[in-house]
């Protein structure tokens, strides 16, 4: 894999950044609206190394969430390259197979979306523990450890114990957001994408989540996030990138 990559980049450069976005473009073609084209991203280039936290800035509609979704492989890119991971694990999302993208999500990239997608009948605790349970491959000790880790996170994020066994569909916005953050952070990954992780949180929880983001970065994660709250941004970002600079 690494040899193919250095080949495509002329061998001049090895992949040292955890995320390398080069001249990325994303255009939505709406076939059922007469083929209308929405060019959301154009000429986006960005490198993020481990231990960095880049805050994406710019007004709504500037493509911040779209960029995060492209890096997670949720949206497909229209132009450019998007190299995620380092060394042998590096893949270019513009050309990677579905199987490589699935492996990337398992090993390299975590994504905390703005809203939790609850699963009917699955408890808050299991939703949080699931990424670790997937790694457990049925090993009972690891399954117990996954649950323990989930409990620790739920306690830290002040989710009342009586809610742990309840599916989070009926939780408040702030509770759902904390479940989503816990699920996104339970398994440390080299790259972390955060879409407004503190938007619905009260002051205490905002401070807790800010601390968790900083811990993840200090442990070596490359973080790219959207933080509308100025205080949060100031306390987590090592660099601010304005989307307008790419236009």
């Amino acid at each position, binding site marked *: 894999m690494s040899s193919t990559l250095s080949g495509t980049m002329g061998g001049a450069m090895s992949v040292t950044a955890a995320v390398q976005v080069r001249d990325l473009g994303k255009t939505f073609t709406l*076939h059922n609206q007469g083929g209308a084209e929405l060019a959301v991203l154009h000429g986006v280039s960005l490198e993020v190394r481990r231990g960095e936290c880049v805050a994406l800035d710019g007004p709504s509609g500037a493509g911040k969430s779209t960029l995060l979704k492209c890096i997670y492989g*949720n949206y497909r890119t229209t132009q450019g390259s998007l190299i995620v991971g380092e060394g042998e694990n590096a893949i270019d999302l513009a050309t990677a197979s*579905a199987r490589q993208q699935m492996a990337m999500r398992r090993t390299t990239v975590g994504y905390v979306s703005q809203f939790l997608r609850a699963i*009917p009948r699955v408890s808050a605790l299991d939703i949080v523990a699931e990424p670790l349970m*997937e790694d457990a491959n049925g090993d009972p000790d690891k399954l117990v450890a996954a649950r323990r880790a989930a409990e620790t996170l739920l306690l830290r994020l002040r989710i009342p114990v009586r809610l742990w066994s309840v599916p989070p569909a009926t939780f408040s916005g702030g509770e759902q957001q904390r479940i989503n953050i816990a699920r996104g952070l339970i398994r440390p990954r080299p790259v972390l994408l955060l879409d407004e992780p503190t938007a619905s949180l009260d002051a205490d929880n905002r401070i807790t989540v800010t601390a968790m983001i900083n811990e993840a970065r200090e442990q070596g994660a490359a973080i790219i996030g959207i933080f509308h709250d100025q205080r949060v941004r100031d306390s987590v970002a090592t660099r601010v990138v304005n989307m307008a600079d790419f236009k």
Partner: protein
Amino acid sequence: MSEQDQPILRVEALSKRYGDRLAVDQVSFDLWPGEVLAVVGESGSGKTTLLNCASARLLPDSGRVDFLTRHEGVVDVYRLSEAARRLLARTDWGYVHQNPADGLRMDVSAGANVGERLMALGERHYGRIRQEATQWLSRVEMQEDRIDESPATFSGGMRQRLQIARNLVTRPRLVFMDEPTSGLDVSVQAKLLDLLRTLTHQLHLASVIVTHDLAVARLLAHRMMVMKDGRVVEQGLTDQVLDDPQHPYTQLLVSSVLQP
């Protein structure tokens, strides 16, 4: 190569014609161990025909189906003897029908329905068969004391769970499912989806699920393929296809439902 390094099922250029109509046109896909693939599309798109050709229930006009067996490497399914193919379908494969009555024997007890596949494998010890059947009934959340009742007395949801237990008792590694939840009430559907999600994961089952319900695909599948007029028009990670559909037909499908 270890099992993880090669597909468990490889379908190559399958085609099936009904008279003048090409129901499945040169469809190929790989399925990896533990992977759930959803095949979506409207009725008449060829998805059930594809499922039946891939699962050796319906002879395709052309194409090839390779399966990675437990002990004998990769076999070309349509080159196996009829007997070997039937044994495969009864042991290492499962097939869940939309209508449970098509996959169950309605004139024998629930326990006999589950035990039958074990007997086909040569198990003759009544106590062991009954014990296994009881375990599987509880695993699909059925009351164990209904083991001697006929499925004819069961609700639709219970019948579907029984059909799943009947399929899984031999620990297959690959299960084909044709609209497994579509005949059921919404609340019953949620329970069944949760069960399928848990079981496919716990048993590391590879599965091809045909469904017209995009929410089912979202919940169960790692990857999806969209079919129209017998052809695959789009495929990718499930959330990718649903959140950023590329093909006009997929865009129409996704925009036509309330919350995929």
